[in-house]
């Protein structure tokens, strides 16, 4: 146990939140799951399945925010297209789930998903092959976003596309994918996307236990990714990444091939986004091209900014907070929630320049100066 603790807290300055974070995350998750599964529905502590799925969705978003933060907060690459990787991961999972429906679709076709039947398709397109295998689909969920990120990153970073140019290119990428996936000819269900899933690995997606399991898996993966990312970023590689953010050309002059660092970090981030997408789909029950929408990708960046970029925990907190606010606001004030959300973004920017984590830092700094003053007096 002590060795485990030591391992967790080993990373320098940036790593000091890791242990509390993991403990709180897993603790809350397990408690909520238990409260859902083992408490009667009328108990005061019962957690509804609605809440569980909602929390599961939040955690997926948190994972996505983590991905954005790694690339933006630490390496200064503002990606306005991370939604693309998320959605691709989601589509891979969606395709698997779609194939699991089998002949339980409305047309009862054992091979073709419903949308293909009524578009009069005769056979499964090649890129659907193998998607009925869970392992293969999951491989694709990380491979496809990773590969896209690799190709895009390799091209862009090698030609030294930086700053807003890179941001807008990532936006163009996700926008192009949005339009492409809208096309029914693409074979991904067009605007409707993929939905009406039945089961995953033989477990009924509608069952509470499956939902709780998905929720737990999401939490565990989030914790793992958090710890691994923390490790990576507090290693020397993390410092190189920060150096690239500060001054890329200087980093080159001391011998780092910055394009390679950026490509791999971009791929890593895209893979995380892909995993988040794959976990998201079975929990919300639908994947459609709307996830590629550039506005979605901008929102992700905003979660990170609200939480505090450059701190992993900030990204997670930002994603949880903004999405919780959205859920609450849309229900409490359906006609005016955009005012509240918009005002929240403006106020956070103005008064919390480093996001919520910055607030924590500000408070600490204040306490320190007060203490300094006192000790001087």
């Amino acid at each position, binding site marked *: 146990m002590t060795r485990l603790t030591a391992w967790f807290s080993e990373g320098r300055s940036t790593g000091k939140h890791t242990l509390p974070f993991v403990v709180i995350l897993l603790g809350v998750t397990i408690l909520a799951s238990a409260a859902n599964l083992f408490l009667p529905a009328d108990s005061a502590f019962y957690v509804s399945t609605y809440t569980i799925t909602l929390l599961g969705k939040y955690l997926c978003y948190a994972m996505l925010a983590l991905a954005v933060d790694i690339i933006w907060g630490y390496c200064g690459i503002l990606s306005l297209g991370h939604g693309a990787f998320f959605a691709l991961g989601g589509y891979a999972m969606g395709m698997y789930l779609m194939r699991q429906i089998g002949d339980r679709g409305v047309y009862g076709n054992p091979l073709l998903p419903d949308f293909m039947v009524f578009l009069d398709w005769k056979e499964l397109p090649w890129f659907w092959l193998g998607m009925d295998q869970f392992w293969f689909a999951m491989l694709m969920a990380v491979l496809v976003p990773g590969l896209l990120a690799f190709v895009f990153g390799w091209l862009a970073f090698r030609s030294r596309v930086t700053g807003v140019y890179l941001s807008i290119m990532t936006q163009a990428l996700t926008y192009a994918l949005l339009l492409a996936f809208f096309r029914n000819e693409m074979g991904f269900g067009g605007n409707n996307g993929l939905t009406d899933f039945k089961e995953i690995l033989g477990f009924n997606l509608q069952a509470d236990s499956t939902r709780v399991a998905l929720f737990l898996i999401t939490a565990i993966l989030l914790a793992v990714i958090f710890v691994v990312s923390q490790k*990576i970023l507090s290693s020397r590689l993390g410092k*190189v990444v920060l150096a690239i953010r500060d001054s890329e050309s200087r980093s080159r002059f001391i*011998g780092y091939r910055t394009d390679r660092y950026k490509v791999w970090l971009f791929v890593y981030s895209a893979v995380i986004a892909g995993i988040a997408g794959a976990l998201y789909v079975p929990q919300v029950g639908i994947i459609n091209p709307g996830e590629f929408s550039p506005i979605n990708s901008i929102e992700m960046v905003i979660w990170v900014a609200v939480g505090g970029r450059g701190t992993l925990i900030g990204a997670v907190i930002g994603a949880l907070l903004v999405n919780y606010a959205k859920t609450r606001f849309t229900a409490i004030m359906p006609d005016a929630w955009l005012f509240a959300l918009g005002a929240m973004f403006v106020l956070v920017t103005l008064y919390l320049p480093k996001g919520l984590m910055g607030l924590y830092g500000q408070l600490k700094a204040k306490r320190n100066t007060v203490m300094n003053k006192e000790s001087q007096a």
Partner: protein
Amino acid sequence: MSTLDSTREFFRRDQVWPFLAPEQAAVNVDNQVILYVEGLNLSFDGFKALNNLNLYVNDGELRCLIGANGAGKTTLMDVITGKTQCDSGTVFFGQNHNLLNKDEAEIAQLGIGRKFQKPTVFEEQTVFDNLELSLKTDKRVLPTLFSRLTPTQIDRIDEVLKTIGLAKHRFMLAGALSHGQKQWLEIGMLLAADPRLLLIDEPVAGMTAQETERTAELLTSLAGERTVIVVEHDMEFVRSIARTVTVLHQGSVLAEGTMDQIQSNKDVIEVYLGEEAASEKAQTRTKAQKGASE
């Protein structure tokens, strides 16, 4: 380029076929020369910043490069370190490394370190981290991910910190350093990298006289094992370290020789030193000699 030309290019005797060349062949300095710069030309929208520039620097030499503002000193360093593409000419590091077809990172990994005219450090990292990043290590992605600071490396950093006088500030963010401190830090980063060839652009700008002296000592001690090229306008400083001085003017070499030769060179006095400065320098020299004899 015609096929014949490209074939010729391919079979040129003076270069190793790229696919045969070992990734990081040792720098070949059999001829004692470590840096060959030949026929370098570079113009910006018609303005010739470098004009058929030739320069040879011996291994282990400490070479001072002076010249009027805008003579092309910084630009020359830009070309050597891969920051700027030149229009024509060749730059070889040792006999076997053509620097013109390498990028900045490769050149740096070959062992060419550079200090910029305007100090550039990683402002959001601590002084210590700045030095750690500059250490001579395997700089590929995976090795960097798994590398840990070894005790020798930590010692090395401590040593450098002491040398540059920032030991007390080791955990301070580099961005919070004053101008002069940043200059020092940048020199420290050079030291940590342990390069073969150091290109140092105006190291003593903004330093006090004593610091200037210290810098001079430091650079002199580096020469021999390493090759150092220093650009500086502070003549006192140049005098205190220089063995050979090269004067650039309008993109090409105007004069080369010992400090005394240079200082009495008419052209150099006219375009660079100025009449009085030259005589003033001569006076201080005599004063210094007197002081020494006292």
